[in-house]
Structure formats: C-alpha cells, structure tokens
C-alpha cells in the first residue's frame, strides 16, 4: 500500500458530526413539520446564495480532513516505511502548491522575489537585483513583456472552463427541474431566470457562476504563478488560505459540539426543576461568565502546551500534536461559551414547563426524564439551531483573535489567525507585505459573511416572532398591483346592498 490512513482526533469528531448532520437531515426530511421551516430557508435568496458559498468551503474543509501518511521510497528492505509527515487528501491534490516553495516573500503574480539578493555572475562581479522565482512564472522567457498577456490568457481559459462547467451544471439542473414539474426545458430555463421558482435557483446559479469562474481562473493560474504571493519562508499564500478553511470550520463546528451538552443539559434542567437545581446552575454560569474568557482560555491553553512539551513521546507525528492542541482549543472555547445558550434555554424551558401539554404529561404520571426528552427538548431545538448557526461565525473570528494573541492553535497549524499573526510584523516594513493579510481577510470575510447570511435566513425561517414577508409574497403583491385597475373594480350591481 502506498499510504496509510490516519484518523486524527478532530477528524474523528468531524466524521461524527457529518454523520450526525446526515442523520438529522434524513430525519427532518421524513417529518413534514420539521421540514417546513427548512423549506422556508430554501426560499430565501441570500440564504441560498450563502449556502452555495458555504458548500464550496465545506468541500475543501472535508477534503482537508481525510488524512494519510504516504509511503516513503525505501531501498533498504521489503517492509514499507511511512513518512512522518501527515498529509491530507487536499494536500495530495494540491501537491504542486505545497511543494513549490520559494526562498522568501514574493508578491502575487510576481516573477521575481520581493527582496534583493546579491548574485554572483559566472563571469565575475556581483549585482544586487531581484532574482527570478524558482516556480512562479518560471516558464516565461521575458517576464516583463510576457507576464500580462500570459496571465490574461490563462485566466480567460480558466474562466472559460469554469463557465463551461457552470453551463453543464445549470443545464442538468434545469433538466431535472423540468422533468420534475413536467415543463419544457426552455420554459423552465426562463422560469429560473425570472426567479419564479419556489427555491431561488437564479441566485444560486449566479453565485455558482461567480465561484466557478473564479475557481477555474485560480486553478489554471496557480500551477505556474503564486496567485496570492508567498510568505516569509516562501510558502504559497493561496495554499495557506485554503488550508485555513478547515481550521476555521473545525473550530466553528466542534466548539458547538463541545458546548451543546453543557448548555442543553444544564439549561433545561435549571428551567424545568427550578428550586435549588436552578440556583446552583445559575450561580455556576453567572460565575463563569464574569471571568474574562480570554484569561481562562490563555491559562488553559498554556497549561496544555506545557504538558505536551514535557510529554513528546505521546505523539508520533507533529500533526497529531498540533491536532490535539486544536481539539483542546475547541474544548476550552466550548467550556467558556456555553453560558449564553444555557441562559436562553433556561428561559425558554421556564416558559414551556407551564404549558398545558407538560401538565397533561404530569397528569399521566410521565417521568421527569421523559418529559425533558420528549416534550421540552424538541421544543427548544429551534433555539439551539439558531444559536449554533449564529455562533459559528463568532467562533471563527475568535480563533483568529486567539491565534493572533498567541494562545490559539499550534504554530504549525495553518489558520487564519496564524496567517494574520505572521503578517502583522510585515505590515510595518517598507515596502509593505500586504498580500498575506489580504488573503486571510478575504477568505475569512467570505466564510463569515456567508455563514452570517445563512444564519439570518435560518433565524427568519425558524423564529416564529419574525414574520417578514417573503420575497415571493412581495413579488406576488407587485404583480397584482401592476394588473390594470379596471379589473379590480367589480361589477357592483348584483352584489351591493339595495339601500
């Protein structure tokens, strides 16, 4: 075998999470009343566009989660030896990006390094000049003259390829929809274009077009250029940005997974049992939320760091060590951030426990545990869902801040925080190195913005108090307005009251 699969701790939890999400989706799909709000999410144009972007991020994150150790070429004997370096599926796919390491900084699309070097000419004498990059634009004979046209040509080709795939996807989608509704292909296409479908496919298609064109261009370009430049040790920033996605997603989702048991169990029991249970739990979360979170996190992270450094024998690879630290960060973030949700759930449970169906259950002698699990838990799930989706973006940002402060993920883990941290010193130098920060910023911005937009759509669909008119209703209303007034004034001879 040429590789050995490795399952790190966070991988296992991510797999668990994916399984849970799939199971949950299946369960929701089977139950009409649970499915209905999700369908409302599907009717929101911004929500669906955001979801398209999120799906793209999630695919990269999942590819980056499948870890393996490749076999090393070995002459010495029959048994295969595996490399100490743990790679992910994404790393394997992006091997050129990963291995094309320059000497130091280079600007996006540059053919030369960003720093002057003394070069000895074979004929004697030295000059200080910007040396050519080893990989970036290496195929060009005369970069000054050819660079712009080459980039434009490749970008156009990549964009065209992206557009071609997009056309394929849209065509198959239209075919599917047309088949389902029994309409002709062309009429279905125009329906989608006008946005008259229940799910705003036009918004999805536009977003998809943007993503695919960008992806196509980036893919064709990144083989021969460093499209977002390189960092201090010459690593490709584009590769780093893509790797950071997984870290962000893991922090955002696993932390939620860690905090849910605390928040659910404590919140619901406090609200349901009242009395001393409530008092204890309330004191607990009041105390916890009055300690500065960063302080607690810093203390815990430093403690685990010291422990790991004194016990190097526990980890067979660097990756597993970094991974465990990531997991600990999730746990610590989870432990410090459950109070908000807990407070919400306690309040909701206080309201629910007075509901008549709970009293009816009491009158049947149903046990407390069953009341909690069958009556209260399903009725607070919408709050849990809204909160977790809303918290996700906050946690991604929190990771960036913590890594910047130095108590975040392991320095060997690529994350938005470590990228920003590495880039911050270079902001002060002249000429300025701006691309690391910009790359981290724009990727994080896209991720957080789409997560927030999606969270908004979820909240609108699930929160019964938010009763905004959906876009479709507004469209209907507009349509009716445009109809000639003559039609709306009825013939009033027969129906009116003779006075």
């Amino acid at each position, binding site marked *: 075998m040429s590789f050995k699969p490795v399952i790190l701790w966070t991988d296992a939890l991510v797999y668990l999470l994916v399984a849970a999400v799939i199971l949950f989706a299946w369960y929701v799909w089977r139950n009409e009343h649970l499915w209905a709000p999700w369908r*409302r999410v599907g009717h929101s144009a911004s929500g669906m566009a955001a979801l398209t972007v999120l799906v793209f991020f999630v695919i990269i994150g999942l590819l980056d989660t499948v870890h393996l150790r490749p076999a090393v070429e070995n002459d010495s004997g029959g048994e295969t030896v595996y490399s100490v370096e743990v790679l992910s599926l994404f790393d394997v796919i992006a091997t050129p990006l990963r291995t094309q390491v320059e000497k130091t900084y280079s600007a996006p699309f540059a053919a030369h390094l960003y720093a002057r070097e003394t070069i000895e000419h074979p004929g004697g004498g030295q000059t200080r000049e910007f040396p050519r990059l080893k990989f970036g634009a290496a195929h060009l004979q005369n970069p000054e003259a050819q660079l712009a046209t080459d980039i434009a040509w490749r970008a156009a080709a990549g964009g065209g390829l992206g557009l071609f795939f997009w056309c394929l996807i849209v065509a198959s989608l239209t075919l599917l929809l047309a088949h389902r509704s029994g309409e002709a292909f062309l009429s279905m296409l125009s329906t989608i274009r006008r946005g008259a479908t229940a799910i705003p496919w036009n918004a999805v298609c536009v977003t998809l077009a943007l993503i695919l064109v960008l992806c196509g261009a980036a893919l064709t370009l990144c083989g021969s250029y460093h499209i977002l430049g390189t960092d201090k040790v010459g690593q490709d920033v584009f590769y780093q940005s893509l790797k950071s996605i997984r870290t962000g997603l893991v922090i955002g989702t696993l932390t939620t997974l860690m905090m849910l048991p605390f928040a659910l169990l404590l919140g619901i029991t406090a609200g349901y049992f009242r009395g001393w249970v409530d008092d204890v739990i309330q004191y607990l979360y009041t105390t916890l939320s009055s300690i500065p979170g960063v302080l607690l996190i810093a203390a815990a992270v430093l403690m685990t760091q010291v422990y790991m450094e004194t016990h190097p024998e526990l980890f067979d690879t660097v990756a597993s060590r970094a991974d465990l630290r990531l997991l600990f960060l999730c746990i610590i973030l989870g432990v410090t951030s459950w109070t908000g949700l807990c407070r919400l759930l306690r309040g909701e449970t206080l309201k629910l426990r007075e509901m008549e169906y709970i*009293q009816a259950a009491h*009158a049947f002698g149903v046990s407390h545990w069953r009341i909690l699990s069958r009556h209260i838990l*399903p009725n607070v799930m919408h709050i849990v869902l809204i909160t977790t989706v809303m918290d996700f973006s906050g946690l991604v940002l929190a990771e960036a801040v913590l890594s910047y402060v130095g108590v975040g993920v392991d320095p060997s883990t690529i994350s938005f925080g470590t990228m920003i941290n590495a880039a911050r010193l270079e902001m002060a130098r002249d000429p300025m190195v701006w691309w690391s920060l910009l790359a981290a910023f724009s990727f994080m911005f896209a991720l957080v913005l789409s997560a927030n937009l999606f969270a908004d759509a979820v909240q609108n669909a699930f929160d019964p108090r938010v009763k905004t008119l959906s876009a479709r209703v507004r469209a209907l*209303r507009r349509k009716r307005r445009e109809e000639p007034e003559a039609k*709306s004034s009825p013939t009033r001879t027969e129906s*009116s009251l003779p006075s």
Partner: protein
Amino acid sequence: MNAVLQINDLETILYTEAAPVRAVDGLTLQIMRGETFALLGESGCGKSMTALSVMRLLPDSGEILGGSVRLGGEDLLLLPEAAMRGIRGKRVSMIFQEPMLSLNPVMTVADQIGEVLQRHFNLRGAVAQKRIQEILDQVGIPDPARRMNEYPFQFSGGMKQRMMIAMALAGEPELLIADEPTTALDVTIQAQVLDLMRNLQQRDGMAILFITHDLGVAAEIAHRVGIMYAGEIVETATRDAFFRGPAHPYSRKLLASLPGRDKRRQGLRLAAISGNVPPLSHEFAGCRFADRCDHAWELCHEVAPGWTALAGEQQVRCHLFNQNWGSRVREQQFKDERLESADQNSGEPDKSDTGPELMNHESGVADSCLLSVTDLKVYFPIHKGFMKHVVGYVKAVDGVSLEICQGKTLALVGESGCGKTTVGKGILQLIPPTGGSVRYGGLELVGLERNRLRKLRGELQLIFQDPYSSLNPRMRIVDIIEEGMNALNIEEDSKAGHAERASGTNRNKVDKLLESVGLSPETKWRYPHEFSGGQRQRIAIARALAVNPKLIVCDEPTSALDVSVQAQILNLLKELQNNLGLAYLFITHNISVVEYIADEVAVMYLGRIVERGSVDEVLTSPRHPYTQALLSAVPVIEPESKRQVIHLHGDMPSPSNPPPGCHFHPRCPHVMPVCREVYPATSTFSSSHTARCYLYPQEQG
C-alpha cells in the same frame, strides 16, 4: 344621507405564503348616527380585518383592493396617510380586545389620554388636565383627579377597558369601532362596560361598530346586527327581528348551537355546524355556506346568492328566500325538517336527564361519592427580600369542600382569579395542596407518594382550556395519545378483552379512541398544527380517555372555541358521559354551558364556595347575592326577558389580602355590619342547596 359610516364592496386581501386570502370580500354595510351595528361571526370570518380596513391599519401583508369606506361622505380609502392620521382618534376611534396589551405600561393614564388631546385639539397643560378629568369621570373612574396620574398596572382589567374607552372618547369621535371589547372580561365587568358604552352613546350620539362573536352581547347592545361568514355579510336585520326570526341557515344554526337549560330539559343535542369555515384563499363559485348547510341544493353550489329583502329591514343572502326559486315552499320544508330533527334528537336515550329528586337522594349519601374534597386549601407563598423569606400567602383556594358522584357533572362557576383552576389542579395533585383532604374512592390523595399516586393517575384526568397549548406541537397524534397509556402501562383493557398486549393493542385502541371522539383513525399520523381548534380539543379528550378515567376535570374546555364548535364538544362530552359513566368537574365561567351540562353547581368567590346546589336550585332561585349578581349579568338573547341587572361595583379583591368577614361584603348590595366581621356559616335550603350568607338563618356549629 345621514349614515355615519358607509362601506361599499370593501375587498381586503391578506398575502400569505401559500395563497392570498380574501379576508373581506365585497362587504357592504352602513351605520347611522347613534346606532350600534354588531358584526357577528365566528373566528376567521374577517370581522377584525373589516375594522382594521376602516381604520386603514392593516398589517403589512394586508391590502385593500377595492370598494369604498365613506365616513360622512368622505372616502377614507382615497385619503393620503397624513390626512388619515387626523381622522384616526378624532373622527374614528377603536377599542381593542385586550386592555392589558393596548395600554403602554410605562406611561401614566393622563399622558396617554393627553396625547390624543394634544394631537387633535392642541390642548396642553391645565386645560388638558381638566379635560382628562372630565373624560375619566364620564367613563366612571372613581376619584379621577388622583387616579389619572397612575400607571396602567395599578388598574384592574375592567378599569383598563374603561381607560381604553376614555382614550377612544377623548377625540369625541363620530364612529367608535369596538373589536371584541368585552371578550377578555368577566361577566360582571362585561355588564358594567356594556352599560357604560350604551350610556355614552345615548349622550353623545356616536355610531358604534361592535365586533363580537357572542350572540348574547350582540343582543344586549346592538340596534342592528350583521352576520358575517367567510368574508361577507350573509344577513342583516334589526336586533329584534334577527333574534326573533333569523333567516339565513347559518344564523339559525348559530342560535341553535347555544347551550341552555331549555335544550337540556328537552334532552336535545345542541345543533352543531359540521365542518369548519372554508379557507378564504380560493375562489367561491356558489354560496360560501353551501358545504355546511343542511338545505343546500345544486343551485347553492353553482350561483352565489344575492341579497333578498325580507320583512322590515331584514335582508339575507340565501337562495331559500329568493322569490324566483319558490322560497316559501322551501322555507316551509325547512321548518318541518327542523322540527323533525328535534324530535329525533329528543328520542335518543338520555341517561343524564335524571330528575332532581333522585339526584338529591344520591348526593345526600357521602359514601357513594367518587370524589370528596374537604376543606381543600392551596396557598402560594409570597417571597420577599434578599433571603426570600415568606411574607404572606396568596390564598388561591381557601377551604373548598365538594363531592362528585359517579356519572355526574359538577360545575364550578366563578370569575377569573377566584381559584377555580387551582381547585382542579389541587384535586389532581398537580399543585400540592396546603391543607385539607381529597379522597378518591376512599383513598386519601393529599400527601400520597409519587409512585402510588402514579397508579391512580389514570383514573383522574384533565382537559384544558386552550387546545393550542395543550398538545405538544412536535408530537404526532398517535404519540400524544399513546403517551399516557405507556406511562401508566394500560395493559389490562377490561372492555376489549385480556389477551392483547404490546403496541399493536395500543394502536387499535388509538383508532377506537379517535373514532369515539369523531375523528377518523387516519388522522393519527398527523401533527397537531394540522387540526382546527375544535378537532384539537377532541384529540385532547381522546388523550384523556385513553387511560380509562373515571373522573375528568374539564378546565374551561370550550371557552377558547366558537359557539358552533363549542356545541360539538359539549355534545361529545355528554355522549361520553352517557356511554362511559364518566364524572366531570366542569370548571367554567359560562353560565349557559352550566345550564346545559351540569347536574350540580358550586359558585366560587375568592377561594371559597359561596353557594352550591343542584343546577335548577342554584340557577332558578339563587340565594347568595353574588350568585344573583353573576346570573343577572349574563347577557341573554330573548328580547322579551326584561331582567334587572344587579351592578357590582369594583372588582374582586386580591386573594393575598382578602377582606375580613365575608369576602364579598365590599361589593355586596345587602351588606350588613356583621358581614364585615366573621365569615358566615352555612345556610341550608334543601338537602343539596346551601349558601354562606348572613341573609339567611345560619346553621349552628
């Protein structure tokens, strides 16, 4: 033309997710000066939407499509919004259903009324203060100079509704729209408010558009009546003409579905209207009531009926009365059918129709009783201060004794806040009683351990007031019904044989239960939100029946329902009692329901029972002044019955600080010095009829 309000062909549409709903569809009405027009109808008929359309205060999703609303000749629908603001509160005012929600809790009453005066009359300072005092005085607020600077929470419910009326009157409107203004109030308070509105109208001569679902209230206050059904008015008439002879089949059914003593005497089932109000989202081809109408024929499904004028001002939208279609013949047939069906119904065996003598005999023997409650007390401690020490008690139930026999119905009557519901929950041990004893079949329930109590849970069940909050929205009907069976391990099903076990049996039983409450077994796979209020209440009843109870505490099971649905539920409860021999503790504030369903009545006031006896004794010859006042305040439909309403002043005192002596003395018209000192002992009038009042000879000991 002296019509204050003339609505022509008003069409209002509500945009919803699924399809636009035609909430008001071609409504035409006019209201004269000094006239009260009552718009009657069940929930979801578009009554409130009509009112909001007139005020142009529709929600965002609503839109007026056509028609005109003329206020004294001026079309309100054509005015710009800025001009409309000058009309709202000045020429047209509105009173809403919930006084608690319509007043701003952080503004004093004077400030809230002052806003109107400042906006429309530009009154400020001392002049405004004087005017506010005047207005408050008009609506009967005692000591207005002091109370005008108080906040809404310092007023009781009835007072708050007076405040709302005062605010509405501040602009001296030509038209007052009252949207169910008394629905949230108790009958005694309702009588006060109706009286106030009548007096104010007589003095100022304004027109009132009175929206209500209560036929009795409409009969009390209206000059003319319009029956609304599915977005349109189906009948208009003067009050007397309408209540003497309603024409439209829907109106007839509505009146026939009112419970009452006469119907019980005759052993009649209540005339329930089958089905529900049709969804207003689709277009109607024929008459909107055709699907639920007993007299519908082909024409009704094809052509929408126009207006037909009957005698006087009465007009009806029904093919039965159209001259062209040979209406007289039809009507005759219609009447015959009605009589026939009445005969059929009375022919049914009616077990509960036992004479009063038999009942007296039974209740005299305490041992034969299923449930006997003696001196039940439920106090809620009031905590105060940092250490939460107890500073007092809310005596919600303060020494209640009652007995319920097998297969009988005891009605517990009283105004809101008197502790009726707490009695019910105290009996079921859902709230631990503070003192007294509850004996069920000889077994003391108070202080019973949780496990032993659980075995008895099946025998005592509960039906709630609000069918929307009593079913878990996340559970299917089958799970809801099976929950009790599983929790109590109802395996030994004595009626269905002994062999069956496990869930297969349960499933069969669920089907049977659903059939017994009039739902098809297929409905068990659905979720509660797919059902209407009446159907939900049926499901709640099925859930209670699932564990084979002997006694069901019905906590206002029909007060959240429309009259026609109420009739369905009352019929069902009565049928179940006849078939299964259930005993009911029927908690209600609706006297006509009591008359129809109860065998015995206990009247409660401030945590204590002031009078009890058989239904005939208490309702025909009430002894306690509170019972007398309560009964006199109930609005009645018969225009002939000239009754004297006994007005009670003020509201029920707080149960945390009951008045010394007889609790009722501050409001009692017959108060004597002795009433202020000691709570009266029992006075007995017959073996079953007792009251606690000093007006009657006291029992010793």
